[in-house]
C-alpha cells in the first residue's frame, strides 16, 4: 500500500508518546509543521492577539507532549489535538476574564448569554446594502467569534468532517451548527434585509 510522505496525526502523536528524545523531537517538529499554522489562525480568529496566539500555541504543545503517551490509538488524533488546542484557548480566555469560569469555547450553553445579546441597529450611515451587511457581520463576529470562524471555514470550502474536528462536534452536530448560522446572523442584518427588499423592488 503506498504511503504518504507526510506523517498523519496518529503517527505524530505516536512518535511524541514514545518518550525517547529523538522520536519526540521528530514528532514535535512534524506536529509543528502540520498544525502550528492552522492553530495560530484558529486562535487569532477566536479573538487572541498575535502574542497571545504564540503563547497559547506553546501551551498547546506542552500539553500535547505531556499527554501523548496516554492517547488511545483507537481515537482520532486530529480531534484529540484540536481538543487540547481548544482547552488551552478556553483556559487562556478564562485567565484573561474573557470567558466566565463555567464557560467553554464552542459550548452552546456557554455562549448562550452572548447570543442573547440584542444586536444594535445598524448605524444611520449604512446607506448601501453591502455596507449594512458588512457592519452587521462585524457585530456578529464580535459577539460570536466562534460562529463567525466556522462559517468562514464553510465559506472556504472546508469539509464538514474537518470543521467537526476543529470545533469538537460530531459531523451531524456540525451540520446542525452550520444550519443554525443563518438564524444567528439574521438579527444582526435585519435592517439590511429591508434594504435588500427595497433594492430588489
Amino acid at each position: 500500500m503506498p504511503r504518504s510522505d507526510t506523517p498523519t496525526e496518529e503517527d505524530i502523536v505516536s512518535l511524541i508518546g514514545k518518550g525517547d528524545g529523538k522520536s519526540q523531537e521528530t514528532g514535535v517538529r512534524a506536529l509543528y509543521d502540520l498544525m502550528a499554522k492552522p492553530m495560530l489562525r484558529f486562535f487569532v480568529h477566536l479573538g487572541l492577539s498575535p502574542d497571545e496566539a504564540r503563547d497559547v500555541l506553546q501551551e498547546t504543545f506542552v500539553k500535547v507532549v505531556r499527554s501523548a503517551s496516554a492517547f488511545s490509538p483507537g481515537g482520532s488524533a486530529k480531534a484529540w489535538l484540536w481538543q487540547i488546542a481548544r482547552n488551552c484557548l478556553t483556559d487562556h480566555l478564562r485567565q484573561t476574564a474573557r470567558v466566565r469560569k463555567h464557560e467553554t469555547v464552542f459550548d452552546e450553553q456557554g455562549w448562550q448569554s452572548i447570543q442573547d445579546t440584542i444586536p444594535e441597529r445598524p448605524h444611520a450611515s449604512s446607506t448601501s446594502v453591502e455596507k449594512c451587511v458588512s457592519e452587521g457581520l462585524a457585530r456578529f463576529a464580535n459577539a460570536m467569534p466562534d460562529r463567525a470562524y466556522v462559517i468562514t471555514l464553510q465559506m472556504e470550502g472546508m469539509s464538514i468532517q474537518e470543521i467537526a474536528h476543529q470545533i469538537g462536534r460530531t459531523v451531524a452536530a456540525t451540520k446542525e451548527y452550520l444550519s443554525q448560522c443563518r438564524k444567528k446572523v439574521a438579527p444582526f442584518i435585519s435592517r439590511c434585509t429591508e434594504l435588500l427588499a427595497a433594492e430588489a423592488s
Partner: protein
Amino acid sequence: VTVQTDPRDEQWTRALSGSPDPEADAHINREAELVRRALEVRRNSLDHTVPAADESLYQQVEARLHREGVPRAHSSRWKSMLALAATAFALGLLVARVTMIPAAPAMRSPTPAMQTVVVRVENPGQIVQEASREAIGLGLALSVTSTGASYHVSISGLVPESPGQRPLKEALGLSPSAAGAILVIVQKK
C-alpha cells in the same frame, strides 16, 4: 434523533460556500453572497495578523518545552553543546586579544547605565548554557564573554515581574524585579 432543518438554511449555507442553488429564493442567495463578501474581507484582515509559523517560533516552542521540563532529544543537546563550545572558543579568542590591549579592562567594563551582578555557583558553564537557552527562547539579546575563570553575561530587554522571564532570572540568580540591561558575572564558587 432526527433534526428537522429549514431548507432555506441549507440554501443559504450553499450560497455562502459559493455554490448557490439556482432554484433557491433569489433573496436568500443575494443575502448569503453579501455575507460571504463581508466574511472574506474580515478573513483577509484577520489572516494578516496571524503570526508566522516560522523557525523562530519553533525555537520558542522548543525552549518552552524544555522550560516546562519536557526532555529534549540527544541531537538537540549535542547541537546546544556544540553551539556553546563554538561560542566559547570564539569568545576565548576575543578575550585573548582583548587582554593584550592595555585599555582592555575599561573596554570590558559595563556601560554606566548597566547594572552589574556577581553570581557564584558550582557550575558556571551550565548556568550560562541554561541562561542562553532561555534567552534565545524569549527572543532576548544576550552576549557571553569568557575570561577563563568566569563568564560575563550581558542581557537586555528584562521586564520587571515578567512570568515568562522568571526562569531566566532564576537561572542567573536575578530577582524577579530585575529590569532593563544587566551584566551578570558568573564565577565558580
